[in-house]
């Protein structure tokens, strides 16, 4: 196993603390707030899942933490990585951290690898830049990394070009590149979306395996609850740029509070349903971030919405479990929730006034 450690790294315990992160983009139609006051923490070796629909801000969030944003973006808040504030006045040069301390695996391996550069070269690049390896050593390490990510015949593959590999293998190469310098934090942005179902499981397994071996923290960004179910310790649910619920995985699935989370779960088709059962899609569309709603972002689409939801944005409240936070005025399990549920069962109109 290839593992590389240096001093000054957080060996255990709290690795990442995000405090009230806000990311705004300057666009032609005015500023857009894609991440609106998100706070979360991550320990060494922990896996965090960030779930949401497209447009929820989940990708922007992961890129904001990493700092991989275009020049039109502005970030506010604090991001503590180890003992450094990445947004503070003494913020380090991110190029030094990228690839070394934190890496990202991107969604579509077909377009994320340089088509005219050999695989080996692309893996060797961070090794040579960050660790000052010689060309020969870097190539040898690259072959070892390819073996770690279970690519057969790594010494042959190392000289090939991306288009000579299958989609699944390309994603493994991406992972190898991300792991090359032994980072403590790995971001995986929809790592399986562009892949076949059979390959998806293998990739997730690979990430989990590497995480265990390296005691590496993982942030898994996806729209697919199935992906996060088996591979994360904590799940954060994003909607409209805001964090609407965050909890340890088991707790989230069994004791969810936010109706959005419930709706997400219910929209997953299940094997034990009869065939041709109508899918429970959530009606409506995500909010337009150019003109964000005043109250709860989910209000226009929520089956349990009441007036207060439209007027005031609910703050993050803590549930019984202290690690479980959610933002909802009338969460799952509250009296109002049950009231509405009965009315729905009785076939009355959705969305009440009170």
């Amino acid at each position: 196993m290839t593992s590389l450690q240096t001093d000054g790294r957080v060996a255990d315990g709290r690795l990442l603390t995000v405090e009230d992160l806000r990311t705004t983009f300057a666009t032609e139609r005015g500023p857009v707030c894609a991440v609106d006051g998100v706070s979360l923490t991550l320990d060494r070796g922990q896996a965090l899942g960030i779930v949401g629909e497209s447009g929820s801000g989940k990708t922007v969030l992961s890129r904001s933490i990493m700092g991989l944003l275009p020049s039109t973006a502005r970030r506010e808040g604090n991001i503590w990585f180890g003992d450094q504030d990445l947004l503070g006045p003494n913020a380090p040069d991110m190029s030094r951290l990228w690839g070394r301390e934190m890496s990202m695996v991107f969604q579509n391996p077909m377009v994320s690898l340089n088509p005219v550069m050999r695989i080996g070269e692309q893996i060797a690049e961070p090794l040579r830049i960050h660790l000052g390896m010689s060309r020969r050593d870097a190539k040898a390490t690259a072959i070892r990394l390819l073996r770690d990510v279970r690519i057969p015949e790594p010494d042959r593959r190392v000289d090939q070009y991306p288009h000579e590999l299958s989609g699944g293998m390309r994603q493994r190469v991406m992972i190898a590149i991300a792991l090359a310098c032994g980072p403590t934090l790995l971001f995986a942005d929809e790592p399986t979306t562009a892949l076949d179902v059979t390959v998806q499981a293998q990739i997730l397994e690979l990430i989990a395996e590497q995480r265990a071996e390296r005691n590496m923290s993982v942030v898994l960004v996806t729209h697919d609850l199935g992906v996060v179910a088996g591979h994360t310790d904590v799940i954060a649910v994003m909607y409209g740029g805001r964090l609407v619920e965050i909890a340890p995985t088991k707790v989230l699935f069994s004791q969810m509070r936010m109706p959005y989370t419930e709706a997400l779960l219910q929209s997953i088709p299940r094997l034990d349903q009869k065939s041709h059962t109508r899918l429970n899609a959530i009606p409506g569309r995500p909010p337009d971030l150019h003109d964000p709603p005043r109250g709860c972002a989910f209000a226009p689409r929520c089956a349990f919405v009441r007036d207060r939801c439209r007027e005031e944005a609910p703050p993050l409240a803590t549930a019984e479990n202290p690690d479980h936070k959610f933002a909802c005025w009338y969460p799952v399990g509250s009296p109002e929730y049950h009231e509405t549920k009965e009315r729905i069962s009785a076939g009355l109109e959705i969305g009440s006034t009170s």
Partner: protein
Amino acid sequence: MNYWVQRLTASLMLLLAVSMLTFAAMNLLGDPLFNILGPAAADTKPESLEKVAAAKELYYLDRPLPERYVRWLGDMVTGDFGVQFGSTGQPPVSELVKERFPRSLTLLVMAQLLAAMIAIPWALISAARANKPADRISTVNSFLLIAMPNFALAVILKYVFGIKLGWFPLTFKATDPWLTRVYQTFLPALTIALPAAAVYQRLLRTDLITTLQEDFILMARSKGVGRRRVLFKHALRPSLFSFITVFGINTGTLIGGSLIVENIFRIPGLGSAIVEAILREDFPVVLAIVMIITTAFVLVNVLVDAVYTLIDPRVRR
């Protein structure tokens, strides 16, 4: 392999067609005898009559047209370009060509090299600062350079650098050593290179900007690769395709422009040879040079294709 055979056959057919067109121009536009000999054709002086007889034989003028063409083509291919009737002693045209060709080639090669050397850094800087003031100014500059006719640019450069600043000499001697000749060729090469560089730069800049928006660039950054390295190592190579294609194809266009530049700067190359020949009404020379230049042009395009396949591994067969 198949692909190359196809390509070469197509090029050969093209060259044949080109030769037919040129031949037709010579023989069908006006009286061929006149075209070859100039005013001497109508002369009744004994030397002229001799020339007429010689011409008729050399150019098979008494034979039917198709046969004439085939024989002419055969001669051309074996390097017999006929004879310079307009000059004393009637030296073979091939001698003139051998003498003049290297200068034209030097000019062209220098021009393209200069153009690439100017265009690539220019494009990299523009793309890195896209849409910022420096980039906008450079876009205006490109536009102006492209609009400027090459003879006008030649006159301007000649005035500024040759006369006012006196950096470059304006006369050429055939006996000058090789290095001096290269130095003398610099200003004319620059005249040709500047507008070409503007075209290349525009194209390369656009492609660079597009490439820079690709995902693999972001991925490279996420590995910790610095901005400059990303530009040179990751963005440049995939962006070069259009540039290289245009670079190759443009060689032909530059050939046309170099004809004029040679005359303005008085470089003894093929371009000035054509003009002198026209003044002397020595049309076989004109014809021969036209064929040579056009053949070179077609061959260059085939070469460009070859280079293209080498650069892009995806296209390799």
